[in-house]
């Protein structure tokens, strides 16, 4: 019997992959003997998908006080301020979501040997395991490598998982199957010299259709939409290539780099894009380091010129076209051929599932089945059951989706009832896939170091309520999409949902209250064709009522055939804000203490709270009064934006930042005029230079927004500039709230708290 996974699997792992894991394991030893700097090891492990997790700095607020987590390895670290023994997250790349039963079985084994028995699917078709110890990761990687999975470049400043539509190859509206192209680019760029020096991560997606949601190309650093043209009487394949999209704190829509790039050219042109990004992209300020900022800075024309210039001087690489010889290898074969069967009556549950979870393939007699997972989670046993089910009905044709579900492709229609029964036995036959009840959420405060509010807690609560109601909801409400992020970074993709939420907080009544910003009108279709805009923050506990109010009003006010996005535009953000206003109220702690904790987490949300004084709820600080002006201003800017008045929208957004800066100054009883120059100077010296305004992770990024526009206004701003500035203003205001909260917490004695 082998005494290690390394020896047990030595004949099953590609040599280069085995070498990589051995090297990584060796680097772990170097950290312990002090030869390798912790910050270097941190980037190294990130590029192997070994990620930090909440509380890994050895501190955790338990609801009463901050506790030190005294890990046995003492001061040993695996990165700056990251303790060696602290549990972490392992991200596992699944290119284009393609998964085989034997791979799923290994993933299941890893979940119960190294994690907590749960596999989690992410919004980039990856898997994540949580509470993993760094010392277990080399063996974990070897076991994955033995079934053809690498974790290389799953995190860090690298090319992340290349995503693609899960219906690619069986879709009724696609130009052609993009799978082999996504696969080719994945492995061409994996570990490539030209992608090792990025300032930030780089995300790529492939779409077969322009008008469906498909691969969500518009929100990607680099995106491909399939095209065909007839040349000399034959149909040739190519892609429209887009660049510079992204969500995050400042969302950008990708722009067309080149229409119809031939299949022979997509790899070299992608390489050229990467080289330009590596050479000219921001390196020092990570908040401006995504390629979207480079494209914005250079302008599309100049960026394109540089890319094509780079393309001209690229040394030839046979791999650019050699993959084309293997296209046929991606042709999928069904396990069974369809046969015509007359079925009798079936039960209503099956009919409901069939109506919501089954998609008719382009190939007659076959269907795609969506397996909906709550919050993207499944157990070890469910993973094994799904592997068995796949083998029985579809063979290797499993894919993960960016909506945190699975699809099973090539199900012969006569098997659908038996498949349903098998899924049901495995608790995997939840209906309403892709509906309002099938909510997407990032990990948020459950495990993410950046999470502000509990995205999973909220998603779980909304999901449980909607599961009870969805059958009775009107069809136009059933088909809405809800997506939730724990912070402004948009890992839950809230910008592209009909109704999105992202976590933030407000300081009220001497306590910090978890909130969610409501983001409405994002477009999922058209490859994430447009992004929603924030309409106001509401307490976390009020979100279910807000959702009810919004959907009820949409239903009653909607015109025939009107989409939610169109309704939001027509109804107007001003009216929506009025609609939300009653839900923004925060009761006194004594009356409703639950408002001061988050969904699924009974710990009091704030730090450093003390028993509440009399009438605390009625005390309104100068800051609160002043910041309300800033919020009103940015809201008006949104209205101007909606009306196409871009200059006014831009001016209002900048003014709202000035007002928010003034609010902070007034909150500290600084005598200040309304002169912008004076406000900016005072803000800079009192809040920015002192770093009081700094976000823990974003540092001074949000303050820079104000300085930038104060130094030089954008002349004749277009829609893109106005939209971006509004987003920046929202973030600046959020940062002002956070700053005020920190100042208040520091000024409040930390002698007590509420016992759970």
């Amino acid at each position, binding site marked *: 019997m082998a005494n290690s996974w390394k020896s*047990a699997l030595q004949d099953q792992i590609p040599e280069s992959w085995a070498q990589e894991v051995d090297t990584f394991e060796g680097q772990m030893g170097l950290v312990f003997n002090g030869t390798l700097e912790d910050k270097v090891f941190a980037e190294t492990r990130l590029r192997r998908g070994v990620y930090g997790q*909440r509380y890994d700095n050895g501190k955790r607020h338990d*609801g009463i006080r901050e506790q030190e987590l005294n890990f046995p390895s003492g001061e040993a670290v695996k990165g700056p301020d990251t303790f060696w023994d602290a*549990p972490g997250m392992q991200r596992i790349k699944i290119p284009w979501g393609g998964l085989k039963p034997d791979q799923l079985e290994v993933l299941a084994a890893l979940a119960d040997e190294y994690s907590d028995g749960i596999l989690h699917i992410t919004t980039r078709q990856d898997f994540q395991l949580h509470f993993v110890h760094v010392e277990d990761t080399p063996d974990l990687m070897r076991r994955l490598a033995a079934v053809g999975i690498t974790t290389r470049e799953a995190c860090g400043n690298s090319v992340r998982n290349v995503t693609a539509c899960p219906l690619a190859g069986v879709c009724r509206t696609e130009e052609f199957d993009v799978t082999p192209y996504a696969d080719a680019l994945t492995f061409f760029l994996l570990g490539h010299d030209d992608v090792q020096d990025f300032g930030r991560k780089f995300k790529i997606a492939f779409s077969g259709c322009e008008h469906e949601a498909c691969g969500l190309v518009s929100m990607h650093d680099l995106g491909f939409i399939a095209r065909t043209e007839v040349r000399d009487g034959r149909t040739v394949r190519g892609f429209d290539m887009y660049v510079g999209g992204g969500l995050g704190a400042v969302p950008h829509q990708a722009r067309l780099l080149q229409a119809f790039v031939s299949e022979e050219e997509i790899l070299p042109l992608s390489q050229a894009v990467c080289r330009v990004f590596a050479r000219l992209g921001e390196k020092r300020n990570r908040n401006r380091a995504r390629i979207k900022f480079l494209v914005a800075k250079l302008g599309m024309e100049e960026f394109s010129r540089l890319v094509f210039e780079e393309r001209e001087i690229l040394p030839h690489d046979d791999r650019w076209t050699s993959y084309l010889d293997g296209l046929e290898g991606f042709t999928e074969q069904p396990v069974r051929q369809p046969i015509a069967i007359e079925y009798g009556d079936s039960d209503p549950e099956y009919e409901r599932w069939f109506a919501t979870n089954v998609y008719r393939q382009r190939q007659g007699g076959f269907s795609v089945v969506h397996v909906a997972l709550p919050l993207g989670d499944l157990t070890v046993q*469910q993973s*094994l*059951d799904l592997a068995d089910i796949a083998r029985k009905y579809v063979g290797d044709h499993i894919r993960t989706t960016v909506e945190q579900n699975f699809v099973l492709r090539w199900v012969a229609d006569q098997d659908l009832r038996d498949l349903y029964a098998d899924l049901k036995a495995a608790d995997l036959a939840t209906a309403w896939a892709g509906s309002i009840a099938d909510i997407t959420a990032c990990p948020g405060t459950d495990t993410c170091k950046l999470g502000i509010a509990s995205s999973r807690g909220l998603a779980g609560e909304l999901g449980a309520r909607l599961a009870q109601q969805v059958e009775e909801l009107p069809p136009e409400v059933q088909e809405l999409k809800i997506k939730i992020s724990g912070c402004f970074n948009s890992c839950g993709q809230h910008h592209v949902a009909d109704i999105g939420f992202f976590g933030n907080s407000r300081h009220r009544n001497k306590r910090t209250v978890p909130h969610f910003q409501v983001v409405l009108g994002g477009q999922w279709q058209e490859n994430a064709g447009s992004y929603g805009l924030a309409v106001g923050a509401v307490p976390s506990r009020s979100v279910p009522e807000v959702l009810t109010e919004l959907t009820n009003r949409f239903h009653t006010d909607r015109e025939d055939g009107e989409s939610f996005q169109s309704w939001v535009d027509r109804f107007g953000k001003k009216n929506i804000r009025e609609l939300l206003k009653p839900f923004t109220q925060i009761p006194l702690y004594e009356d409703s203490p639950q408002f001061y904790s988050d969904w699924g987490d*009974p710990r009091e949300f704030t730090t450093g709270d003390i028993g509440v004084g009399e009438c605390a709820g009625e005390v309104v600080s100068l800051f609160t009064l002043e910041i309300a002006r800033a919020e009103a201003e940015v809201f008006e800017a949104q209205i101007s934006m909606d009306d196409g008045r871009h200059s006014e929208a831009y001016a209002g957004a900048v003014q709202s930042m000035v007002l928010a800066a003034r609010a902070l100054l007034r909150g500290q009883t600084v005598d200040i005029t309304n002169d912008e120059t004076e406000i900016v100077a005072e803000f800079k010296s009192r809040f920015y230079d002192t770093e009081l305004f700094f976000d823990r992770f974003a540092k001074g990024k949000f303050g820079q927004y104000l300085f930038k526009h104060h130094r030089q206004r954008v002349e004749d701003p277009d829609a893109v500039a106005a939209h971006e500035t509004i987003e920046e203003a929202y973030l600046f205001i959020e940062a002002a709230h956070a700053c005020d909260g920190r100042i208040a917490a520091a000024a409040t004695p930390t002698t007590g708290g509420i016992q759970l």
Partner: protein
Amino acid sequence: MEQPQRLILRFELHGDAPVNLDDVIPVFHGWIQNGRLSTMLIDVADYKHVEASPGVVLIGHTDDCGIDNGLPRTESGQGFHYTRKHARLADEASFLERLRQLWTNALEAAEALEQEAGLGVSINPGRLQLMVPDRLRYAFTEANVQAVAALVQEWLAEVFGSAAVTVSHPGIDERLPLTLTVAVAGEHSVASVQASGN
């Protein structure tokens, strides 16, 4: 026998009334606040939304515990599960010694849980499963089942004395961790087992 990297005990609960997992979450947070257990506690993971899942889990550095929401593909009710991550301990203890330590720690947590009056949990230490999530050293094979079962008999004789102990398995599946199902004759409670000094 080689040392397993990880061991899990799962006890059945007495009674039919289900434990509300929403109520377990604040209890576990309270345990972290108060240092209720002798092992290092870190966080609470909530998987109650997944059927037949670990439910609500108190995550520790060397030990996890929780109340699940039933076993998959069975009529089993909820259970109390306790995991000891020996890979984190770097000790030289034998398999048998690891079983003893697992038992001691699991009973400590079980007792603490029963003392949470609001939960109404009653744990049956005489009905349990032992899982060995270590496919390298203890693949779920007939040979390994026989070897581990013999060890379990020896260990439980120390705990339950002359009470008859039945050890079986739920069906070999090499993809799963080696799993043994144990039934001890007679009525047992956490208090009675602890009172017996074992």
